[in-house]
């Protein structure tokens, strides 16, 4: 649709000189935004690491960690990695010729489905924590002796803070992706201009990477010591 051979593209904003400059600015902006996200999650990761290395809390962390369902976590990891693949393919087909538009949209829809699958599985995990009174707060209870019980609560607080923030990022991501799918359906993208698809791809991969760190830290570390969930 867009006249790709003319120097001034319809998607060129007024304050940029050319598409190249606009593309550079957008992509640098996204990378810097992801840098801020790393620092954001980094603070909570720091809290985790500090407690993990505090002798008494470390023990409580192992106890609490072993109540998580490793298999659900593993499945979710696989689901997310697949969604990263589908998103990468969507970006690939956005870059190639326009007759691959349907493939591009298909892969984006697949990404949405995989993202939702992740959230549903996460929901089951949360529900399990709820029935076992492992949600931090006034009704919290954990079968551990004395001071260890209150220390396990720290694990679950960090668990819910980190996975909750991660899930929030996924929800925001899915909403944005739906908007991008709508734009794609309206044939707004071309091989010359598909910045939203590309930049969103970066965001989605980032959210996946956060989970790649969360899974071993929350589920696997200390797992072998007690030989399995529940």
């Amino acid at each position, binding site marked *: 649709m867009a006249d790709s051979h003319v120097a001034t593209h319809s998607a060129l904003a007024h304050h940029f000189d050319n598409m190249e400059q606009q593309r550079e600015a957008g992509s640098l902006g996204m990378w810097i935004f992801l840098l801020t996200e790393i620092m954001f999650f980094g603070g909570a990761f720091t809290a985790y690491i500090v407690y993990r290395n505090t002798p008494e809390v470390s023990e409580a962390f192992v106890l609490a960690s072993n109540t998580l369902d490793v298999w659900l976590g593993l499945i979710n990891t696989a689901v997310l990695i697949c969604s990263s693949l589908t998103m990468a393919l969507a970006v690939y087909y956005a870059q190639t010729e326009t007759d691959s538009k349907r493939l591009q949209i298909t892969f984006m829809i697949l990404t949405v489905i995989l993202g939702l699958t992740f959230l549903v599985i996460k929901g089951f995990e949360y529900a399990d924590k709820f029935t076992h009174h492992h949600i*931090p707060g006034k009704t919290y209870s954990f079968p551990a002796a004395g001071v260890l019980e209150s220390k396990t609560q720290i694990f679950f607080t960090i668990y819910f803070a980190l996975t909750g923030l991660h899930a929030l990022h996924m929800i925001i991501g899915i909403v944005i992706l739906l908007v991008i799918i709508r734009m794609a359906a309206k044939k707004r993208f071309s091989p010359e201009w598909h910045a939203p698809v590309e930049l969103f791809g970066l965001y989605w991969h980032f959210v996946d990477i956060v989970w790649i760190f969360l899974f071993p830290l929350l589920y696997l570390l200390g797992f072998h010591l007690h030989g399995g969930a529940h």
Partner: protein
Amino acid sequence: MIEATEAKLKQVEPRTHYLNANYGIKSWLLTIDHKRIALLYLASITVFFFLGGAFALMIRLELLTPKGDIMTPDAYNKMFTMHGIVMIFFFLIPAIPAVLGNFLLPLMLGAKDLAFPKINLLSWYVYNLGAIFTLYAIIAGGVDTGWTFYTPLSVNSTSQVTPMAVGIFINGFSSILTGLNFIVTIHTMRAPGLTWFRLPLFVWAHYATSLIQILGTPVLAVTIVLLGIERIFGVGIFNASLGGDPVLFQHLFWFYSHPAVYIMILPAMGVISELIAAFSRKKIFGYSFVAFSSLAIAVYGFLVWGHHMFVSSQSVFAGMVFSFLSYFVAIPSAVKVFNWTATLFKGSISWDTPMLYAFGFIGLFIIGGMTGLYLAALGLDVHVHDTYFVVAHFHYIMVGGAVMAYLGGMHYWWPKITGRMYPEGWAKLSALLVFIGFNLTFFPQFLLGYQGMPRRYHEYADHFQVLNVMSTAGASILGVGYVLPMIYFIWSMRYGPIAKANPWPGSGLEWQTSSPPPTENFEETPTVTWDAYEFTKDNSRRYDVVKQGS
């Protein structure tokens, strides 16, 4: 004859610039012009400056006598907390980047706008959304924890910590977005010929500042999220009675909040570099040293947070390391001061108001910086920790530094922003009042602190009264010094003499366009062929604009 009439007609014909390009409230609230957004910020920030100032005056009024006679201890706690929060998060951090940076960066780079104009507008709305939560927290009863929100007090406090935390969390995004926008703009939108080492030092300073904003602010954000979770659900990450670690909060908090000091002072240093060069008509001595010292300060800023925690139970070894590292910040800071001084040497100095502020800045910054070395010294800090010595030190840096530079910068670029000059006599008077008032307020506090008067107490021993009275007297002079520019700036917007494109001998690109600039900043994208601070005889129209019929 005809030529004369034409010239006259041309004079009468109103010129289109960014202020009169379109009218109406909508054209302002929905603008994506960085210059208008800067003015929107100016309005919001000025409100908070005077709000924070009012709290400060209440504090000083209470401390006029040794007995607590105008407010309860609880009200006093809230008063200094609000003063700190409002001044730091809603004035000092955004002031220079959001107002002067927003206005000037694209102009200095020869760009039409910032890289993300809509995100720029968004950041102003985000700032105000945060402001609404903060104002709500203030009206609903205030916060009594001190601006640092130390746990476990902030977890247990019954005051409005939660809405205040939400306000600061939201406001943080405004800071992040501004920093992100600046970095991308500096990287991708420089005019042809404007290489990195031709950039004004103002731009370098903002680049370094933006790095801190994007790396530090998210850490504060997640710290506040964890604090909020703790308050709402009653769980323990930082709360010792639930197994948590309060010192962890301090680590996370200061990891942002120490670099935040450099968010306040680095842009100020950028402004001062511009002022010193312009009013001594000389190239900044050791340009690249000054540029790199900004980056060095940004990097060191992240390595010294532990010097706030010498008495917090962190290990003596950690204290020694942080003490050692803290000295290093003095090196790039001193590099700047020495280079400014060397620039002044044999310069043709003119004593306009911005230069007065620049001189004030250098003097106050030296005092603030040198006392910083006292505080970085592990043993000495244990003696003066949480006394008025600390209060005086950071006010010398943050008020004596950042506010002086902000006011100096506002005077310097005022003709560019509004197209009008301010009344020079009044401006000089205000600069003098600010300088005298500032020193009278805060110098006695060094003495008070050294003698052992603790901060945050609303009553004190009788023998501290003389110095406290001096301090309060100084604060009222300072108040007058701050109100004066407010009045004559507003006056000058309507009645001030029309300003030329380059009323000072400015050498930057921003002076190469008309005052006020057109919406697109330049009639043509300028090509830069000269280095920063290369002064010519009159500096008007450095780049070639004669391109007929294009």
